[in-house]
Each structure stands twice: as structure tokens, then as C-alpha cells.
């Protein structure tokens, strides 16, 4: 039988990975909540941000946590521009076209990275990567603890933006009633782009938190985004607290099922959960009934 300490270690590990999952899912759910599209480009943007964080350290010597201060606004701008000047005009206000344009962008970004950097896997070695807290029965690496804390800061910042700023109010208005918001003088195309930018900024922060303890290659982001889809569905599409809780739940479930069933079957467990939630309760466990 498994000793309780192994079990606890697996759960804690799962919660630590769950934090980054939650951050990726936060961006996804924000975009879904306002634009009502599933952003298939999310994974490719995460990969791009991971490459950016990697080269910021390798070529300029900027540590990832410092790089986050630069990459977050940069990726906000990239996301804003993508929605405002590509996805928006290209999709003619049709939901299915938005899905396809986002998918097209994902294919372009991922394979452009592949063409330039090839399929090689890259990692960085930070001096403090192996520091951490030793609990006796398990070791808590510093980069993952920082990631855990940062997720709550980001969620808090998002909550403040949404509840206390005019832009946040406009975003919520567009999410609730697009036509009404438009009639009230809100520039919907701008709000869509701001939301897409915020979602992309989340991905940039996630990339900076991941890169100290993870590798990057042109398809590195995909693994996170498939899990993030699951979290968003579980937490209710468009629900920010749902994404946070969902992230931790999925992190723990993945870690535990890998422990009991092995890694491949653990992944199947996540997708089965995903399908069952979609079929039985598509509004998610925390979302309002559609």
C-alpha cells in the first residue's frame, strides 16, 4: 500500500502544477467569457512566450521573473493586435470563423517556431532552480512555489481590473449583453481586443513561471492547453473562480491518477472527465446553467 506521505506529496505536487494550469485556463476562460470563442491559438501563444522567456535569459541574461515584467505588456499588445487586426476582421462576426482563424494562427505560430528553431528541446539553468523547502517527506522547489503564489497575485490583479476600472466594467457589459453595450457607446471591437490581450498576457506570465522548471520546444504549449480546456469546461466556461478551482482540482487529479495508473492512463482520465462534464453538465461545475 502507498504510505500517506507519498499520497500527500502527490497531491501537493499536483496543486503546484495546478497553479500554472489555472493561470493558462484563466486566460482561456476570460476570452471565452467575453468573445464566446475557444481560443485554439492559446497553446501556440504560450509556446511563443516560453521561447521569448528562454531567449531573454539566454541572450540578454534577464531572469524569467524579471522578464515577466517586459513580456506581460508585450504579449498584451500582441494579443490586442491579433484580435483587433486579424481575428476580428477575418472572421466576419461569425463564431465558427473565429474558431478557424484562431486555429489557423495556432498552426502558423507553432510551425513558424518549428521552422526557425527546429524540434530541439531547450532548458535554462537558473542558479536557484534547485533551492527550495525540504519538508522531510518531500521537497518543494522554489520556482514552483513562486509560481503558486504568483497565480493568486494575477487572479487578484484581474479581479481588480474587472471590478474597479472602467475598462473592466465595459468588458463585463460586453460579456453580458453585446448589443446593449454597443448601444451604450462601448467600442466592442476594442473591448474584444483588450480581453484577448489580457488572456494573452496571462499566458506570458505562465510562460515565465514555467520556464525555470520546464523545457520549451515548438509544441510545448499544447500539453498545457488541452488540460486548460478541461479546466475551463470543468470550472464553467467564462468563470474566473471556476478556472482557479478547476486548475487545482485537475492538477491534483492528474498527479494522483498518474500515481495509481501510470502517466498515459492518467491523461486519459483527464479527457474522460472532460467528455463526461461536457456531456452531462456543459455549463461546468461552477458555471450558471446555460
Amino acid at each position, binding site marked *: 500500500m502507498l504510505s500517506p506521505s507519498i499520497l500527500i506529496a502527490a497531491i501537493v505536487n499536483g496543486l503546484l502544477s495546478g497553479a500554472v494550469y489555472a493561470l493558462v485556463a484563466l486566460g482561456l476562460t476570460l476570452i471565452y467569457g467575453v468573445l*464566446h470563442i475557444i481560443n485554439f491559438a492559446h497553446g501556440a501563444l504560450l509556446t511563443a512566450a516560453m521561447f521569448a522567456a528562454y531567449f531573454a535569459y539566454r541572450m540578454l541574461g534577464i531572469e524569467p521573473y524579471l522578464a515577466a515584467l517586459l513580456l506581460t505588456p508585450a504579449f498584451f499588445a500582441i494579443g490586442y493586435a491579433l484580435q483587433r487586426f486579424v481575428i476580428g476582421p477575418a472572421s*466576419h462576426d461569425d463564431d465558427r470563423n473565429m474558431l478557424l482563424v484562431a486555429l489557423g494562427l495556432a498552426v502558423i505560430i507553432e510551425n513558424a517556431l518549428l521552422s526557425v528553431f527546429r524540434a530541439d528541446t531547450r532548458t535554462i539553468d537558473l542558479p536557484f532552480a534547485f533551492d527550495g523547502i525540504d519538508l522531510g517527506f518531500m521537497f518543494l522547489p522554489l520556482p514552483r512555489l513562486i509560481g503558486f503564489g504568483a497565480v493568486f497575485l494575477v487572479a487578484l490583479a484581474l479581479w481588480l481590473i474587472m471590478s474597479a476600472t472602467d475598462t473592466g466594467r465595459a468588458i463585463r457589459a460586453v460579456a453580458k449583453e453585446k448589443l446593449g453595450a454597443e448601444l451604450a457607446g462601448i467600442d466592442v471591437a476594442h473591448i474584444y481586443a483588450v480581453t484577448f490581450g489580457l488572456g494573452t498576457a496571462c499566458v506570458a506570465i505562465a510562460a515565465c513561471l514555467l520556464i525555470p522548471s520546464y523545457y520549451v520546444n515548438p509544441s510545448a504549449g499544447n500539453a498545457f492547453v488541452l488540460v486548460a480546456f478541461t479546466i475551463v469546461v470543468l470550472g464553467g466556461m467564462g468563470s474566473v473562480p471556476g478556472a482557479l478551482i478547476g486548475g487545482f482540482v485537475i492538477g491534483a487529479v492528474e498527479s494522483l491518477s498518474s500515481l495509481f495508473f501510470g502517466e498515459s492512463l492518467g491523461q486519459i482520465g483527464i479527457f474522460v472527465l472532460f467528455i463526461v462534464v461536457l456531456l452531462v453538465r456543459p455549463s461546468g461545475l461552477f458555471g450558471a446553467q446555460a
Partner: protein
Amino acid sequence: MKGLAPIFAVIVVMATVPLLGVSNVTLNFLVVALMTALAGQGWNVLGGYGGQYSFGHAAFFGTGAYVTAVLQVRYGVNAWIAFGLGIAGGAIVAAVVGGLTFRSGLRGAYFALVTLAFAEVLRISASVAPITGAGVGTLVKLDLHAAALQFQNRAAFYWTILTLVAIALIVTRLVERSRFGVWLIAVRENEAAATALGVNATAVKLTAMVISGAITAAAGCFYVQYFLFIDSGLAYGTWISIEALLTPIIGGVGTVFGPLVGALLVRGLGQAAQLVAGGDVPGLDLVVYGCVLVLIIWFAPRGLIGAMAQLRTRSVRPAPLARAGHG
């Protein structure tokens, strides 16, 4: 039937290509393009005519491929019979996935996600299950006889896939011209209105999905006979699902010839990009595919065929796809 004449004309012209003395490289390119077209023709029945955008057609392609390979290798079933059962396997998977999702009323983005998830579950299962050869994959024994559905001559493979494409074109035309096709298009345009008029939307979508799954599975069955090897990534990889939707969207979504035109175009452009780059730049052809997809939706949302039809009628009014309401 009037609508079948253009199909026969196109197929007869294409059938003469191997007689013109083209190289094996060209024939190989055409075989792969036609295989992509066939997978896209399957997607087009459900996505183009029914408006249900699947992001997981690899589930059908891969099942067709695995059934064909595993029956031959492990159970000694004749290749022709295995091929037929592979198509049936794809249809059954489609019936299961469609039955579950349409009954739950999933559509739009939710339908896209759930189909994607089914394909992923199958991919991971195939990568660990012993019957599929797990991570190693399944190798079909080389046996170059027509009885084993393998040919020494590349032209014979070309005519085989061309025949399959021809059958799929005819099926699509028959669907389009039938009462069922009218119901399907009605569901695409406005499901609530169609239901109010007495159309059983769930049954119509489910039937379309089964036809769609069977056609895409046929492409998977052919893949195995042509390459004699299959593994979980080749069978159920995300890329298969993307290619299946790429070709009809680019060629002309909801048109009979759309997938064929789209497949020849994207494969041709991909090949050209690699030639221009001079050598093997991984992913470059896919960058081209992605750009073509975005540009087509942007400037010709009804695909190449739709754009040409619009030019012919000199209509200046843009004709966007039926708008799906938000929320």
C-alpha cells in the same frame, strides 16, 4: 441525374493522368492529395452541409486505419474485407460520438471541443493498448497482390484512391439533392426553425455524422494499404483533424468539389513552399496551410469555389456564412 455529369467529367480527366507518363513523385503527390481530399470530403458532409464543425475527425480516420491494419495482421482477415470493416468501424465510432454529443445538445464550440477530446482519448488509448501495437505501431506485411489490396504499380494505387474519391463525390451529390440534404442544410441555417417545422434535428445530424465518419475512415483504411504502417500519432494525431477541415474550408465549404480543390491547392502550395525554401525546412508547408486558411476565411469565407461563383454572378454583395448567434 444532372448533377452527376460534372463529377464523371472530372474523374475521367483525372483518371488519364497516369497514362500521360508522369513521374512516380508526381503520382505519389497526387495520391496523398486525394487521400487528404477524401478525409475532407467526410468532414464536409457534417461540417459543410450540417454546420457542425468537428475538430476531431482523426477519430474516424484513425479507427479506419487501425481496424484495417489490425484485422489483417492479427486475425489474418483479407485486406478487402478488412478495408470494408474499417469503414464500418469509422461509422460506428461516429454513431457513438454523435449519439452522445447531439443527444446532449452540444453545438458550436462545445461540439468542437468534445470531438477533439474523443480523438485524444483514442490517440492515448492506441498508444498504450497491446492490440494496436502500442507505442511501436502496427506494420502490415508487404504482399504486392491485388488480392491483398497492394499494388506494385503506383498508378493502381492512384486509381484506387480516385475511385474512393469518386464514390464520396457521388454520395455528397446524392445527399445534397435528397430530402435528407435539405433537412441537413435547414438544420445548419437555423436549427430551431428546422425543428419547429418538424425536422428531427438530432437524427439528421447523427445520420450526417455516420456518413461523414465512414468517408473519413475510408481515407484511413487507404492510408494503411498505401504506407503499410500505422501508429497512434499517424492515426489519431491532431494534424489529421486539422487537415480534414482545412481542405473543405479552403476549397469551398458545403460544396461537392470543395475538398478536392482545397486538397490539391494546399498540398501544391506546401510543396512549392518547400521547393522555394530549397530543402527541408520542417513546418514550412504547415505555415503556408495556416496562412491560406486565415486568408481564405478573411477574403473568401465560402472558399475558392464560392469566390469563383461570386465572381461569375458579378455580385458585389458579400455572402458570409449563416451567422450563428452569440451566447
